[in-house]
């Protein structure tokens, strides 16, 4: 027997779960098909920044979309906590990207200036801070001598990515979504009035389909009329033992979590689907973090891991509806945590209405094909 749903979301990571969570606000029967523990699960290995700094250079629409998500995050985190009881530990703390040495300071100052000229208004409201401003902002932190300044974004923040994923999954249950683990979509076939999705257990018929399976999108996309190349980029992370909070603002390379561990990252490596960690990368990351806050050298590293970012060629998201098979949507990005709020709100709303509209037009993959 074939089962039915009003919408099927393929992918139960932070992207698929956020979209399904948003879709379920409407009166629709949503099914989420997820893989099991063997999935390449970027949602479980990331750094947990809700981050604007440094994104959208060359694509202002991405900057504004990211800012929109940052604006929605406080309300999103509150709603998740109310509905699920899970605290995502989201804090809109402001975020930093440290400049160690003169060369970095010059490059960063130039990048901030360039962002400002590209966009009529700067969605990040980013600015440069010098060392004395950093010290003033974080009086308890003893910075290393190489810290000359940082770029600062007031809308940036951080969150526990594991709690976020957990909250979304509890939220799916709360909103009546049919979540199915260990149910990969093996094949998707366009049929009259929609699509038929085959899993190892069953077949599901649906008028609406969302591909949000990260690296798992690739084998499903082309038969549905999508032409999107998804690349893997390895990022490594070190985790220290817990320490008492030192009131350090999160930065892209070191942040202290709500529970006291420091996360130290990261790398950008093109090594296919290899998720090994490598001592030289760990050493380089640790050395840099220690140049920022020398006291970190006292802490022991208790865990190290690597994950795979889900990248497109320009590192910006792709959102589109299939021209050949309307009703089939594709959503992919490498900032599923940052964008979770806007995915659950605006993107889910647009998918519900059946049209991605002008705001999302810049994210169509036609930008890669010279149209």
């Amino acid at each position, binding site marked *: 027997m074939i089962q039915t749903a009003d919408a099927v979301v393929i992918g139960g990571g932070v992207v698929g779960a956020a979209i399904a969570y948003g879709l379920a606000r409407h009166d629709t029967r949503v099914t989420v098909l997820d893989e099991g523990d063997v999935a390449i699960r970027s949602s479980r290995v990331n750094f947990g920044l809700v981050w604007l700094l440094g994104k959208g250079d060359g694509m202002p629409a991405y900057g504004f979309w990211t800012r929109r998500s940052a604006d929605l995050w406080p309300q999103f985190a509150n709603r998740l906590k109310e509905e699920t009881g899970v605290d995502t530990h989201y804090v809109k703390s402001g975020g930093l990207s440290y400049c160690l040495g003169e060369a970095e300071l010059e490059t960063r100052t130039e990048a901030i200036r360039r962002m400002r000229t590209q966009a009529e208004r700067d969605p990040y409201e980013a600015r440069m801070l010098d060392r004395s401003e950093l010290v003033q902002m974080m009086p308890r932190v003893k910075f290393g001598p190489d810290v000359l300044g940082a770029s600062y974004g007031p809308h940036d923040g951080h969150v526990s990515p594991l709690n976020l994923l957990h909250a979304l999954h509890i939220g799916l249950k709360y909103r009546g979504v049919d979540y199915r683990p260990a149910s990969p979509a093996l094949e998707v076939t366009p049929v009259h009035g929609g699509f038929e999705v085959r899993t190892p257990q069953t077949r599901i018929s649906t008028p609406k389909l969302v591909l949000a399976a990260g690296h798992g999108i690739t084998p499903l996309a082309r038969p549905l009329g999508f032409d999107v190349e998804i690349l893997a980029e390895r990022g490594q992370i070190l985790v220290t*033992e817990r320490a008492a909070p030192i009131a350090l603002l999160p930065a892209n390379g070191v942040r202290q979590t709500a529970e006291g561990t420091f996360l130290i990252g990261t790398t950008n490596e093109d090594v296919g689907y290899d998720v090994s960690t490598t001592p030289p990368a760990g050493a380089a990351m640790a050395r840099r973090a220690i140049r920022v806050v020398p*006291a*970190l050298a006292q802490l022991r590293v208790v865990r190290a891991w690597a994950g795979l970012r889900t990248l497109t060629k320009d590192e910006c998201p792709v959102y589109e509806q299939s021209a050949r098979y309307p009703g089939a949507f594709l959503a992919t990005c490498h900032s599923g945590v940052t964008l979770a709020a806007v995915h659950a709100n605006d993107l889910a709303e647009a998918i519900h209405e059946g049209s991605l509209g002008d705001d999302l037009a810049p994210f169509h993959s036609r930008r890669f094909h010279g149209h």
Partner: protein
Amino acid sequence: MATERIVVYVEGTPVEVSAHDTAASAALRAGLGHTRTSPITGEKRAPYCMMGVCFECLMVIDGAASRQACMVPVRPGMRIERQHGPRELD
């Protein structure tokens, strides 16, 4: 053959232990009860796996915080103390 006995200080109290003990087993011999409190919940914890895996036995040893007491061999005069919550960064 009798093993050598040495004296260590568990929460300031002298305790005679075997030279083959670890700081964690010395704390257990001393009947210390809990050896740390959780930095998250404040809950009392004590050594569990005794083989360096579970991180339940974190203690302050000779002034150094967050040591895995089960992996630290005792030495004469060692100071073994409870760790209260998370360690501080200097």
